[in-house]
């Protein structure tokens, strides 16, 4: 039998947006919980900073929010994955030990984003990881000191990742940014109105001054016998091969939309549609942070606060943050334009390159079909445990295929957990 809990406000996702939402919603004796799949709160960006003293040395911003969260007496259900919606107002979740039914009056979706991985020959070799992926592994304890790492893909995250890995003792052989230099220069000039971002960028560049940063550069093949030993990059009119132990490679981020889709929240341009109060098209369900469009930690914190206040009818508090949110969104627009992915990346995968890593489905096998749905039915792509989280995102970029629907469970779950999904009104044993 599953545990039953009821919350005034339930928040899915314990990253910056979820933490901010929880802190604002936890007032006047309301029962508020954050549910998160990860072993601890903080999301990927604040991963490994659970202890306030660690956070204080690495990020004063993280430390202050984690302290607020503790003082707000929010329940944190870590290591808990939402798998289904048995009925309106109730989510079914699973931990390593048991299942639980989480009922709520108001729900705030702050499920974050994930990296976009693009297939190229050799991308399945052990040692080829996400950019944020390798950072997460290192923050979880993976020793990286003395290892040679090439960082590739796109976005400011590459600098943040390289900085973090170097800090942990890695030798960064190259940072390969796919965006062309002139676009980045324009983006940099546009930052003059945001001194904070400019300083952050300058800080990375200063600390990484001895590391080669190539623009208009991307991986075309990873090589190695059973594990990665070198990566070949396209750089200008030439290719160059770099020997390395890890390739940390991510082409930007995409919002995680499985849960909002399951809950019938309207999507708009690849993100959850929200109104001024961060409320989705479904009454009583709010969304904040990357789920509403990838915007980074500062915007996520603002959106989280607005959602948290709005969910408990403190509209006056929420409205005070509208202007800051507007500024944040303008920055995101500039970011998207600067780091837009180039067409050449669509032809990196050869006919034999696997696109679906769970079921080993190659590009050639997929290309025989005209839509995601058809390809899925015929090849099993997207039907493995990742449920298309990796290959579906890649196929969207490669073939412009859209994934329409989602079926529960939205995450692989134990049979015992799924037994909790019963037709309405039906009790066990009757």
């Amino acid at each position, binding site marked *: 039998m599953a545990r039953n809990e009821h919350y005034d406000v339930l928040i899915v996702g314990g990253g910056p947006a979820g933490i901010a939402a929880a802190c604002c919603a936890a007032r006047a004796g309301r029962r508020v919980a954050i549910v998160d*799949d*990860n*072993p601890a709160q903080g999301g*990927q960006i604040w*991963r*490994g900073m659970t202890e306030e003293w660690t956070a204080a040395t690495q990020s004063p911003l993280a430390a202050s929010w984690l302290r607020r969260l503790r003082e707000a007496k929010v329940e944190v259900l870590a*290591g808990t994955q939402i798998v289904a919606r048995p009925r309106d107002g109730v989510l079914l979740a699973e931990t*390593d030990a048991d299942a639980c039914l989480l009922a709520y009056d108001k729900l705030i979706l702050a499920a974050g984003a*994930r*990296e976009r*991985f693009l297939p190229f020959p050799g991308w*399945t*070799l*052990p*040692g*080829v*990881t*996400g950019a*944020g*992926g*390798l*950072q*997460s*592994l290192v923050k*979880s*304890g*993976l*020793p990286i000191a003395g290892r040679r790492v090439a960082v590739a893909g796109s976005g400011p995250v590459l600098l943040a990742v390289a900085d973090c890995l170097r800090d942990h003792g890695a030798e960064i052989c190259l940072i390969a940014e796919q965006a062309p230099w002139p676009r980045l220069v324009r983006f940099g000039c546009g930052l003059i109105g945001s001194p904070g971002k400019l300083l952050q960028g300058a800080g990375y560049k200063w600390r990484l001054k001895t590391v080669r940063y190539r623009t208009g550069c991307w991986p075309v093949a990873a090589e190695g016998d*059973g*594990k990665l030993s070198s990566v070949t990059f396209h750089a200008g009119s030439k290719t160059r091969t770099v020997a390395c132990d890890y390739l940390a490679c991510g082409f930007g981020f995409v919002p*995680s939309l499985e849960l909002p889709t399951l809950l019938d929240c309207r999507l708009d341009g690849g993100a959850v549609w929200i109104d001024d109060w961060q409320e989705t098209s479904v009454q009583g369900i709010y969304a904040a942070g990357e789920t509403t469009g990838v915007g980074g930690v500062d915007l996520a914190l603002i959106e989280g606060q607005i959602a948290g206040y709005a969910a408990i009818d403190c509209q006056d508090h929420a409205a005070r943050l509208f202007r800051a949110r507007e500024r944040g969104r303008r920055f995101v627009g500039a970011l998207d334009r600067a780091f837009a992915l180039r067409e050449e990346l669509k032809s990196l995968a050869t006919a034999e390159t*696997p696109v679906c*890593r*769970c*079921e*080993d489905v190659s590009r050639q096998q997929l290309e025989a079909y005209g839509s995601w749905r058809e390809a899925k039915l015929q090849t099993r792509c997207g039907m*493995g*445990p*990742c449920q298309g*989280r*990796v290959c579906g995102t890649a196929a969207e970029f490669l073939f412009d295929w859209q994934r329409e629907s989602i079926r529960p469970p939205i995450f*692989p779950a134990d049979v015992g957990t799924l037994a909790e999904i019963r037709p309405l009104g039906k009790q066990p044993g009757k």
Partner: protein
Amino acid sequence: MSRQVTVAVNGKSVSVPAGSTAAVAVAAVGLSQFRTSVDGEPRGPLCGMGICFECRVTINGRAHRRSCQTVCTAGMEICTDGP
């Protein structure tokens, strides 16, 4: 010095800092192959945050556990699916 936790990876005992995930323990014994793909190819962690399932291993007899999302506890038995 930080507290250490001892676990077994494919029967081999290894100590990792407390709070480390099972993925860290697997890497600590020098393994890069966590599982074998449908077509027999070696695979290791990709996303580092629990969505890709490439790092799945058997933990305490339960198959298909995500090593990047599972924190090591003393005496944990981790088995990779590969050489």
